[in-house]
């Protein structure tokens, strides 16, 4: 919404991707392209294969057919060294955090830095503290264990860990699910700030209509194993495709739309700790 993508270079390109689990077809002939510097959202009903799509992008699952290119690297037949190098260039925030229960929040955030860099331990801790506050968490959370955190805090900690290595590409799985409206609004601004500050490309899976209207540059609607439509929310709003309409009809969808189109008066501080 705010600033248009600087280039049209494709960060992720999926061509004719098909996924099958036994007889169950999840994707069939799916095409998708994410451009550098944009905030890209994937939406779709439950069971439409959004999570599978994400897992295929981040090398957790192989598609049955088709090609996927991420950051210019083809994912099929990728060797271990190339996969490791690629994994350091993206960050993933999992829906339920995926934080390691045996490490404190600070250790969780510092882990990628400890594994992949030669930085000194105190420096890693300082950087981890910064990422923590960047994700909107207070300093005292640092020494806590993931089991002591609330759902929202866990998501933020997971985001901080995803940001540890300054990735070029950030994947967010349901970034606002299970958050209170205030925290969810915080995520809106956070996502935008991250993109503006670092020129990140952000791919997110979400159901949050506010998030879609407020921050997503382009949105892909997934249904029937294919991308039904791609475009900004305004563009999608005008499509007549019956598989896309449910996201724009209905009171909740209209409410989010009206709010997004109303002139924004208050801009929240981007770095406000939770």
């Amino acid at each position: 919404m705010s600033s248009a993508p600087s280039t049209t270079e494709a960060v992720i390109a999926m061509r004719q991707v098909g996924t099958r689990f036994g007889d169950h077809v999840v994707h069939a002939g799916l095409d998708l392209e994410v451009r550098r510097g944009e905030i890209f959202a994937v939406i779709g009903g439950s069971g439409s294969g959004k999570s599978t799509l994400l897992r295929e992008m981040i090398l957790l699952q192989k598609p049955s057919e088709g090609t996927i290119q991420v950051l210019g690297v083809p994912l099929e037949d990728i060797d271990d060294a190339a996969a490791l190098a690629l994994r350091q260039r993206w960050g993933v925030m999992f829906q339920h955090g995926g934080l390691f229960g045996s490490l404190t929040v600070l250790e969780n955030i510092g882990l990628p830095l400890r594994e992949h860099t030669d930085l000194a331990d105190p420096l890693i801790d300082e950087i981890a503290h910064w990422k923590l506050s960047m994700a909107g968490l207070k300093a005292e959370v640092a020494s806590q264990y993931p089991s002591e955190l609330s759902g929202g805090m866990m998501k933020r900690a997971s985001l901080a860990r995803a940001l540890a290595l300054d990735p070029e590409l950030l994947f967010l799985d349901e970034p606002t699910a299970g958050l209170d409206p205030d925290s969810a609004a915080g995520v809106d601004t956070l996502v935008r700030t991250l993109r503006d500050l670092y020129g990140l490309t952000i791919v997110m899976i979400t159901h949050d209509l506010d998030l879609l209207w407020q921050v997503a540059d382009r949105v892909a609607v997934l249904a029937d194993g294919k991308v039904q439509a791609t475009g900004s929310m305004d563009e999608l709003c005008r499509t007549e495709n019956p598989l896309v309409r449910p996201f724009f009809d209905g009171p909740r969808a209209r409410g989010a739309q009206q709010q997004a189109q109303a002139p924004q008066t208050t801009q929240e501080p981007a770095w406000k700790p939770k």
Partner: protein
Amino acid sequence: MTQSRAAQASATATQSSPNDLAVAGAWTARDLGAVGVQLDAFVFGAGTAVRVDASGVDALDTAGAWVLHQLLARARGTAASATLQGLRPQWERLLQAVTQHVQEQSGELAPVAIPVPGGVERIGRSAAASWEQAYAMLGFVGESALALGGCIAHPARMRWRPILFNIRRAGFDALPIVGLLSFLLGIVVAYQGADQLRQYGANIFVADLVGLSMLREFAPLITAIIVAGRSGSAFAAQIGTMAVTEEIDAMRTIGIAPLELLVLPKIIALVIALPLLTVFADVLGVAGGMLMAQSQLGVGYGEFLDRMAQAVSVTSYAVGIGKAPVFAVIISVVGCFQGFRTQGGADSVGQQTTRSVVQSIFWVIVADALFSIAFSLLDL
């Protein structure tokens, strides 16, 4: 910002004069390497104007910005001023973000580190924890007994399917390993006794040795230990995982008592299965002893069994089997109890599972010792 990472040289910093510093290369987390130590070694003249030339920097990320900011802050500490020149404009914002973060942090108090407890405090804490655990265990036993009483009073509430399922899992599936190990144990006992008995020409007494030791002691004990390792741990891990994933809470809110669904079937199943497994272990253990007796001492199978029938009373056999249900209760109660005490995550599940195995084997052996004392007092 870090697109062509591979082509970039790692970060460098050179001090051409006390007031001039040039930084260059890729200032990113992976390329910073030893530059941090190098920077700490730089000394700035007091009251001078330090200039840092950053025109050679061709990549900067948060880690690099942080180090750069620290450098400037340190320079400003001693020198009159420190200025950064030549940094590409797209990274200015990153540096501002660091400054902003540091200013915000300075307002907040750093979290106070929790002091490491001293020796006495540690002893006190672990004593309190043990006491708390013993108390909770007592409560758990009481609750289980109440639930059992409730089920006996209303047999319709008894859940037969999980009971049968657990008998199969903990009993039938354990037959091969229990059989094999007790067979080997029988062989070992007979083999160890063979030498001594041969010296006195008392070969036939191998039947007494094997019969009594296997039926009274070894078979019940080895069975209980195997089952504690196999099923006690499984009980703890299953219940522990359910506690972590809130399944137990869900059960409570739906109105199912976790004790009735999870604990009682396990206790009942093990109380049925363990004596049966013990009988099986008796048979295989004696068979192992017989095999050794024949090959090492020349005692035939018929002779062996004749002698064993005389030497081993039904009481001895019953004493061995009678211990099994007690062991079964210990194993299942400890396993389930430790499972319910799981809090937090995967780590805790592992910890409680370990505890369940260690404690149930410990209590099984303690109970066995108490049985020995009691039986000798009763002349059984």
